């Protein structure tokens, strides 16, 4: 029984790892991406009858991985705000590449941009992942795009 379960998890892991890892890299950077992917799988494996009850395991993992990343981001950004308070630096950087620029966005914007334009989630799914109202997703994306435009100009 355990062996059968393992085979299914292995299959899902091999099928979805690349996309989850790359999405996590966009959100939290390469150093934390591995932890995000593994944490998402750990949560999935805690779900009772996951394969019977989750119709779209890949979609489920995308949203949960994004939520794991958001938790990390919020912890890190609290630390960064403290660092910025202690050691002020110029945040208005220019000529960044897209990935670097993305990593400088506030957590909500970074996550909304990644979920929308990399994973292709719709507004409702993004709202669910961010735990905000669907009407808030559009403005978050607009602000995120504007900030990206500024940084990669």
């Amino acid at each position: 029984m355990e062996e059968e379960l393992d085979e299914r998890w292995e299959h899902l892991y091999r099928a979805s790892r690349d996309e989850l890892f790359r999405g996590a890299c966009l959100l939290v950077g390469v150093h934390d991406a591995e932890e995000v992917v593994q944490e998402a799988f750990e949560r999935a494996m805690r779900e009772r009858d996951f394969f019977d009850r989750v119709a779209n395991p890949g979609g489920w993992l995308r949203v949960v991985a994004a939520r794991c990343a958001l938790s990390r981001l919020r912890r890190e950004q609290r630390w960064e705000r403290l660092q910025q308070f202690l050691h002020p630096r110029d945040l208005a950087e220019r000529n960044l590449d897209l990935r670097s620029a993305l990593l400088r966005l506030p957590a909500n914007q970074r996550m909304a941009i990644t979920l929308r334009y990399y994973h292709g989630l719709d507004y409702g799914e993004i709202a669910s992942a961010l735990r905000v109202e669907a009407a808030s997703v559009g403005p978050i994306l607009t602000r995120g795009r504007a900030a990206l435009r500024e940084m990669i100009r």
Partner: protein
Amino acid sequence: MIDHEADLTRRLRAAAATIEVPWTPLRRHHSGPGRLAAVGSVAVVLVVALLLGRGLANLRATTTPATSAPTTSASIAQRSDLALVPWPDGARDGWVSPDGQFLVARLGEGLGLYRVNRADTGIVLTRIARRGLALFGSGRWLDDSSGFIFDGRSASPGTTATLDLAVLERGGTVTPLATGVLIYSAQFSHLAPDGRSIAIASPCCPQRVQIVPRAGGTPRGVVEGAPTAWDDRGRLIAYNFRDIIAVASASAPGYRITVPLPPDDPGSVVSVQSAAPDHSAFVVQTGRGSGPQMMRVLVDGRLLDVPEGGLPLQWIGAHELLLYRSGDGRFSAFDPLSGKVRTLGATLPEGGTWWGTNGKYLAWGLRGLHITDVETGETRHLDLPAGDAGFALGVTAPGTFVVTMRDGLRFVDAPALFAQPAPLGQLRDRPTVQPINVPADLTLPPSCRYVRYVDTLSLFRWELDCGEGRNDPATLAAVLQNAGWVRCVDPPTSAFAKGGRELLVEGAERPQEPLVLTERLSGTSCR
């Protein structure tokens, strides 16, 4: 630059594609029914309690609050149909057939098949057979409850695991269906309405839809792609990443619809998630293989976005799509034929797992079980001794939930919990769903509902269902005449005219066919 959303998508995907993905094995976690969650919860409670200086005696007195409270909740006493039916023969879990008559239980050494008998003293399980079958993960009952289809273990040539597909029949015999099929074929198999064939997908590549005789035999490849559903005229609906294909049956011609993908995304692949029960619309997933994907609705050859913020959950009625919108937390019903959206009474409960049954009831909860009428939001609460393992839910017809717990099964008759249960045939206020362009002064009889709408350059056409045997012009004649429409005398047809407009009412030739109402847009010949 990123002035357009499509540019950002393209650039972000290109940037992500440059990220090297190192291979790290999946970490071993303790999978199982809530084991880690339960242990974690206990640990957190202990730590918090100790930090607060509370002793273990206080901990014992602590009660766990229920999950988010429903808006209208009424507890009911334990009912006899909530009585525990213990797992038989040391089983750990199992599957109840859709008709509620049979149980397949997973035993230590294979599967057990049982008859579910409802006696005066309660529900009794009678064993029919025990079989030493190696089940790969899971299986499920065929829709007609005629057998339990499952993937058996097979060889794994190369990296692709393939399985043997078989059916455990209600009499206890096993019918082999196919060998070396695609992984998880049992979960995604589709039984034909006549019960004589099962559609499955062949291993990649190219993936083909195969039809396997229900009685066993050689699979027959019919079209490249994957199966979605069968329609009620015996046609298999499949998709091949660009087209939706209905494979011709003995009684109906086939058709092919090329999904009109957005011009800015020509490389998209398509999968068809589901078909409306009346096959007037399909939920289509567009996107790239491992990249962004969007759910859209294909209706009358057009690809529509789901109303803002909506997640398509399932079809309800003939062609309404149950949506969840995270904005206000409510469910809504979207009719793609008319574009109408109705807000329903139920809200998605936070934190709890949930299931819908044909869009009528929602069951959710972690420690207690809540049954919600999706239309009204009315909720009933049932006490369940869930223990630390929680529970799983299944559905048997009509409207009965099967609660699967560590110690056994419980059957919950959802309609019986409500004073005015939601009708299982259709949602209550279906008549408020109106197709676009419908004559504003035409109020349908309560028994009639629109099932399809078509417009062309020269006419509008609506298909209506007024119930079997009532889809004839006389059903609408009185309604039209009351609204001021005058029957035409020349030509002598069931045509009605009013203010330069003309409606033609055509009755069904067969009982299951709809009533057709057509408005001619190019003048009238009616006198």
